[in-house]
């Protein structure tokens, strides 16, 4: 049943091959993404029912097909709470991404095709239970990014696309190498649950963990491998920015959690301090860098680095609450940043500038977009009642509850980010949305229907999660329990043996 997740994206991709006109392809894409969203929602409700029946947190809807028998490669899929939260995020962003690129006129069919290919990769990645399958879908999602940025991008888009793909490929290479290391030093298979159950020798973990974590870390924009983010996001077309920072960066964090942490908990405990330090630097450094930015997209890109580094802190704290908060933050930040990029796209489409100092007082002519912009900003700076607040609070409380003075200090310093975030958010919205309106902007028109739908959906999700965070936190908890069990089982028991044999 789970593999039906590819049904609607696949059908849409197929249909897109036969049509070319903008009016047709955008409706096909919209329909496809709506059906997919409905499918994901029903999957969610089935999962919530079934998981209560089983009364245990395991991976559900598993299916396995042999892919390449001699190497023990299987197409093994299944979901748990964490995966489902990410799938829901992907579905929402795909849907709103189609709305955000409603007016794309340059090669619309190819544009939507790439968009759907990207989301297909993401779905596959989040349901994969097998390292090889996971890697396969991770790679599928890279190429469309390159095309989207280099063909539909703006500014120095070719250079940005090259940089993005090269850095992500470097990350992929690290992941591939460590996958092979895991394969040969473990159970000679790629199945995540089997590897987790058998465990890996500590010596192997010590070598492979940093490689794997850095590999996925590049996707998550971990300091100092974050430089693809600002350039990539700012050159990309709106929908691609939404995907990049809404889903792509989360794929990295998901990999860090699901693969690096869960398979190599012992090394994770030993080396957490290195990555915690990097993540803390990322949180503060990116926040300070944001303060100096003048371009709206750069502001949001740097702020994304800061927010996702917070996710890494939550993951590395290795505490159920912090993990839960980290995944919530992935979801919440995904929605928020997609909203931000969509709004920036709308503003840019009207004012033809993204430079903060060139805009002023847009609230007067664009009340709808302006209000949404303020709400997105307030979510970013962690206002209660919006989704960022419970997520960040969970990360802070969770990592403060972890043992050791080091992690306490990391937590306290990372809280400094809530002040810096307030500074840049208010600087940005203070001059773009508020202030006196200049004459050149007075004839601007407020959002059209598809823009309003997009805003309502994303803002609605932000508010819903903010007011009633328990539903998503409970959903995530099913997955977190699963991972915590794996971590607990093997955090001490593994006996080191022999040398690393790759």
């Amino acid at each position, binding site marked *: 049943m789970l593999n039906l997740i590819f049904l609607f994206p696949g059908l849409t991709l197929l249909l897109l091959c036969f049509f070319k006109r903008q009016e047709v392809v955008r409706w096909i894409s919209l329909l496809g993404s709506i059906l997919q969203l409905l499918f994901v929602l029903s999957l969610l409700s089935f999962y919530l029912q079934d998981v209560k029946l089983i009364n245990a947190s395991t991976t559900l809807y598993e299916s396995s097909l042999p892919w390449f028998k001699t190497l023990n490669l299987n197409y093994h899929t299944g979901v748990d709470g964490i995966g489902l939260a990410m799938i829901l995020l992907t579905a929402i962003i795909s849907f709103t991404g189609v709305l955000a690129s409603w007016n794309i006129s340059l090669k619309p069919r190819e544009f939507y095709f790439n968009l759907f290919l990207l989301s297909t990769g993401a779905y596959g990645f989040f349901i994969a239970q097998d390292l090889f399958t996971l890697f396969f879908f991770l790679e599928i999602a890279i190429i469309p990014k390159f095309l989207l940025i280099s063909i539909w991008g703006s500014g120095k888009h070719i250079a940005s696309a090259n*940089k993005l793909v*090269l*850095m992500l490929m470097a990350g992929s290479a690290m992941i591939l190498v460590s996958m092979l290391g895991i394969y040969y030093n473990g159970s000679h298979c790629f199945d995540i649950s089997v590897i987790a159950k058998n465990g890996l020798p500590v010596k192997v973990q010590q070598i492979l963990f940093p490689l794997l974590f850095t590999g996925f870390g590049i996707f998550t924009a971990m*300091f*100092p*491998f*974050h*430089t*693809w983010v600002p350039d990539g996001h700012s050159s990309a077309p709106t929908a691609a920015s939404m995907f990049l920072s809404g889903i792509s960066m989360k794929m990295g964090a998901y990999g860090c959690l699901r693969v690096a942490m869960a398979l190599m908990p012992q090394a994770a405990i030993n080396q957490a301090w290195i990555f915690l330090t990097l993540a803390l630097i990322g949180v503060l*450094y990116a926040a*300070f*860098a944001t*303060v*100096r*930015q003048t371009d709206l997209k750069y502001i949001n890109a740097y702020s994304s680095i800061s927010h996702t580094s917070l996710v890494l802190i939550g993951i590395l704290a290795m*505490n*159920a*609450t912090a993990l839960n908060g980290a995944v919530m933050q992935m979801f919440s930040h995904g929605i928020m940043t997609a909203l931000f990029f969509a709004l920036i796209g709308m503003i840019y489409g009207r004012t033809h500038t993204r430079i903060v100092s060139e805009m002023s*007082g847009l*609230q*007067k002519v664009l009340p709808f977009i302006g209000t949404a912009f303020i709400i997105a900003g*307030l979510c970013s*700076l*962690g*206002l*209660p*009642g919006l989704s960022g*607040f*419970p997520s960040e*609070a*969970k990360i*802070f*409380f*969770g990592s*403060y*509850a972890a043992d050791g003075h080091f992690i306490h200090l990391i*937590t*306290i310093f990372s*809280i*400094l980010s*809530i*002040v810096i975030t*307030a*500074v840049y958010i*208010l*600087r940005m919205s*203070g001059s773009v*949305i*508020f*202030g*006196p*309106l200049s004459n050149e902007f007075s004839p601007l028109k407020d959002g059209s229907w598809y823009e309003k739908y997009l805003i309502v959906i994303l803002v609605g999700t932000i508010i819903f999660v903010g007011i009633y*965070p*328990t539903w998503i*936190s409970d959903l995530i908890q099913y997955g977190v329990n699963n991972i915590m069990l794996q971590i607990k089982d093997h955090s001490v028991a593994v006996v080191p043996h022999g040398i690393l044999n790759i």
Partner: protein
Amino acid sequence: MNSLSIILIPALPLAVFVLNGLFGKVIGNKLAGILGTLCIAISFVLSLSIAYTFFAVSKDGAYPAQIPFKFDWLQFGKGINVQLGAIIDGISVMMLIVVTLISLMVHIFSLSYMHGEKRFATYYAFLGLFTFSMLLLVLSVNIFQMYMGWELVGVSSFLLIGFYYDKPSAVAAAKKAFIVTRFADMFFLVGILIVSSIGGSLDIPTLIQNLGQAGAIDHLHLGTTFIGWSSLSTGLLFIFIGGAGKSALFPLHIWLPDAMEGPTPVSALIHAATMVVAGVYLVARLFPIYLFSAPEILRIIAYAGAFTSLFAAIIACTQFDIKRVLAYSTMSQIGYMIFSLGLGGWNQNVHGYTASMFHLFTHAIFKALLFLSAGVVIHYVHSNDMRDMGALRKKMPFLNIVFLIACLAIAGIPPFAGFFSKEMILNTAWEANGFIFILGVLTAGLTAFYMFRLYLSIFWRDAINSEDKHNSHPHSSWLENLPLGILAIGAMMAGFIPFAKFINFDVHIDETSNFSVTAIAIAMAISGILLALFMYKSDSDRPRTMVSSLGSLYQIIYKKFYIDEVYLFFTKSIVFNSIAKPIQWIDKNIVDGFMQLTANFSLFLSRKIRGMQSGNLQYYMMFFMAGLLLLFILCISI
């Protein structure tokens, strides 16, 4: 206790926010205002009924706290739960009445005052949001719930200060207010983390049970940190810093005077009566913990409060913008409330607790009255500057009377409300700490002086030029006069409430009143008033001679001790230029530069290697032979 009515008290303003915010255009301005006022009126009536039922039942003279309802909102791990709920005890009931009363007065007042404003419905939506958030804060049963209300009042204040968003000064003031208080909130959050991890809960009653009992601290075996405090004390200090930001204590006060950019009724509600006392309420809420587990922090609190009250009173004497004078006066009075609480740091003196809450109550009434009256004056004169005013007593006889009542109340002249609460605070200070007592008495004298300077400059000081400038008749609306009248009656009568009977820390400790302290306080107030009369009763050269005799000292005070400039230096030169700018440079040139270098290096390498695959057979042959040779050598050597 009826939990439905308690839920309704904050829920009604929230409903107003949602309705007016989403459907303001459909509802229309007039209806939006009436809807908001009606809902808050119901909240007020419900608060009164809760106060009545709560204070009707007493157990040996004490009123036990009740928790009518609470529910789980989010879990932060074992025992650390965020529960939203309501706690009903003396101080929360008192705050319920203060918040809903002042909010109702401001709602009514704004119906006329904000008339003709285009975004009238939005204004009422924001007022609703503020009232809801403040009530959420006041009713908090959980310290994290308090933090949530705390952040929400902060953002409502931001939205309302920046209500006239096309005015750059308003936007700047709103940003400043938000960022300064946010900086303090960071400490609050860290404090919550520390205290909750020591106390094992976020629930306030549980925390008080674990940490706020005599001797509770000894069971915890807390080590001392490098300053010599326990980590609990550090946590409690951080929580207080959060409160100091909201309550505009020195040195986190710089946002409050600028916040006067907002509409005047907003200043009355948020920046005089309710939100700015949140810090006082926070310390009062956790008072047992401070009292028993961290008396050294209470002493710090006392000094911070006393210093702020004198500091702000000195500045208030030199300012000309009437709203700013009132803002500094608010700071000064909040300093009073704070040091009154802090007096518990000496011999566990708990009279200050009652006195502080009493002063909070009376101050809310007369300060809201002052702000609303100032609003009427500003509308009439079209200026905030008291030098543009004068001789208004003939034009506005009603306003003259209510303003005088408020001034007498804040100056501490019996039998007006402020006298009773101030006298109680000074009595406690006399018992606890002489130094703070002296600061308090000095402040009392200055308060009387600057308030009457303000009053006389507006309503007397028969200037020559101001007479002809405002020959129009001030329009007076019953919607504005009604709240003024009600608050004036409150400012006259509130002192007679037997406050100590209702709100006290321990029923068995009787309050003592020292006649000589009362006499000193009254004497200071009267001499302050007399000095003001001497200088400002009529237009004269006396203020100018006074200023020139003070010389540069006056300039320093007038420039508010240059604290703003210090902050500007800190943020501009240090944060922006010495941190953010270098980081931006490093990111662009070093971090990204390294990545570029890697790419360029591989490009360079690939160009070199490319040469090998030239398609030239001779080259291939050469490589082949060289490889064979190498293998051969390897084989031999092994």
